[in-house]
């Protein structure tokens, strides 16, 4: 009797110990969300890893990681491949809707030089609003059909708006609102969560392996990665939106993509933009 209860006690203790060990991960639920500390650590991680890269150059993605690529890209920037899309975007932006209003009526400062403020947390709605989402809402509010988030028109519009903000530092705000913090944290979780049959997270490529190759491509660092959006990708022979990049990346790792502008995507864009605060907007970008 005594021996049996001793064994039971020991196994119970062992089980308890195992449970405690299992849950003693680096961050417990009690940890407060601290975006300021996150951003500082994020920046330090990349500047430590690439001490020769100037802070503002991180926004040039793979070009900041490889000298030969950088040289080719500098040459190409004299005659950027995104010129046609950018022009189309400017025309589209200036053209009034059927009801006589235009995009300028939906945005602060007429939509010029404001890209660096997106995404933002909308306190009324309690959700993150991205630039792409705001553009389509503007269209619908004025009786126009929304654009696909993954095609040329949305890419051209966001390209133009990014262009008017070139050089301005990313300036994302997290208001003192638990819902905003939750969205930020959700975005962070999405970024680091592995998914798809290939079991990759965004971090697998852009935190663990920037500067290294995946097949023939050189990987960009996560710091400043959204500052260049939207991007003209040679692979796409055209301009593509942030939504397009998120969804195609998901499929590339064999994960079924969510719908563009689903909460997770909006939140991860919010997180990535926030931790890149201070780095210049370089959009629209050109990429291999």
């Amino acid at each position, binding site marked *: 009797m005594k021996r049996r209860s001793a064994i039971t006690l020991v196994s119970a203790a062992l089980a308890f110990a195992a449970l405690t060990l299992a849950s003693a991960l680096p961050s417990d639920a009690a940890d407060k969300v601290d975006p300021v500390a996150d951003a500082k650590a994020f920046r330090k991680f990349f500047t430590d890893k690439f001490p020769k890269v100037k802070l503002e150059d991180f926004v040039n993605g793979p070009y900041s990681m490889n000298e030969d690529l950088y040289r080719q890209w500098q*040459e*190409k920037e*004299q*005659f950027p*491949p995104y010129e*046609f899309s950018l022009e189309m975007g400017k025309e589209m932006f200036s053209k009034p809707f059927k009801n006589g209003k235009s995009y300028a009526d939906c945005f602060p400062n007429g939509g010029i030089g404001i890209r660096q403020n997106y995404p933002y947390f909308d306190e009324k709605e309690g959700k993150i609003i991205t630039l792409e989402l705001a553009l389509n809402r503007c269209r619908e509010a004025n009786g126009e059909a929304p654009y696909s988030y993954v095609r040329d028109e949305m890419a051209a519009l966001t390209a133009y708006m990014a262009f008017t903000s070139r050089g301005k530092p990313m300036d994302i705000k997290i208001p003192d609102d638990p819902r905003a913090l939750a969205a930020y944290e959700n975005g962070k979780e999405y970024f680091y969560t592995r998914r798809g049959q290939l079991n990759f997270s965004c971090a697998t490529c852009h935190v663990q392996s920037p500067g290294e190759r995946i097949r023939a491509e050189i990987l960009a660092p996560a710091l400043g990665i959204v500052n260049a959006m939207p991007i003209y990708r*040679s692979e796409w*022979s*055209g301009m593509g939106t942030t939504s397009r990049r998120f969804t195609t990346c998901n499929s590339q790792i064999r994960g079924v993509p969510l719908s563009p502008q689903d909460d997770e995507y909006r939140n991860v864009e919010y997180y990535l933009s926030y931790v890149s605060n201070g780095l210049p907007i370089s959009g629209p970008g050109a990429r291999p």
Partner: protein
Amino acid sequence: MASTIRVRATSSGETTEVQALIQHPMDSGFVKDAKGEIIPAHFIQQLTFEYDGKNVFTADWGGGVSKDPYVKFAFKGGKKGDDLKISWVDNKGATDTTTAKIQ
């Protein structure tokens, strides 16, 4: 309609460097659309750069050249202020031409 040809030519003493970006779908004729139907071949077949009455650069292209092709080359000669004439013809017989001043 706006020209499909963007060009910049800069002379530096003995040589002139030329860069051009041409807007053209350059469909190879092998790609299918969303409905599964072949997008017909539609690409530039010949591109020429003419200076002082002579062709300084000729390109004979096929469907293997990507959309919105970019060309960069240098030729001996060329003076600031002179004209450089660029023209292309595609497989549908369409053409475009433009003249730029060498800077």
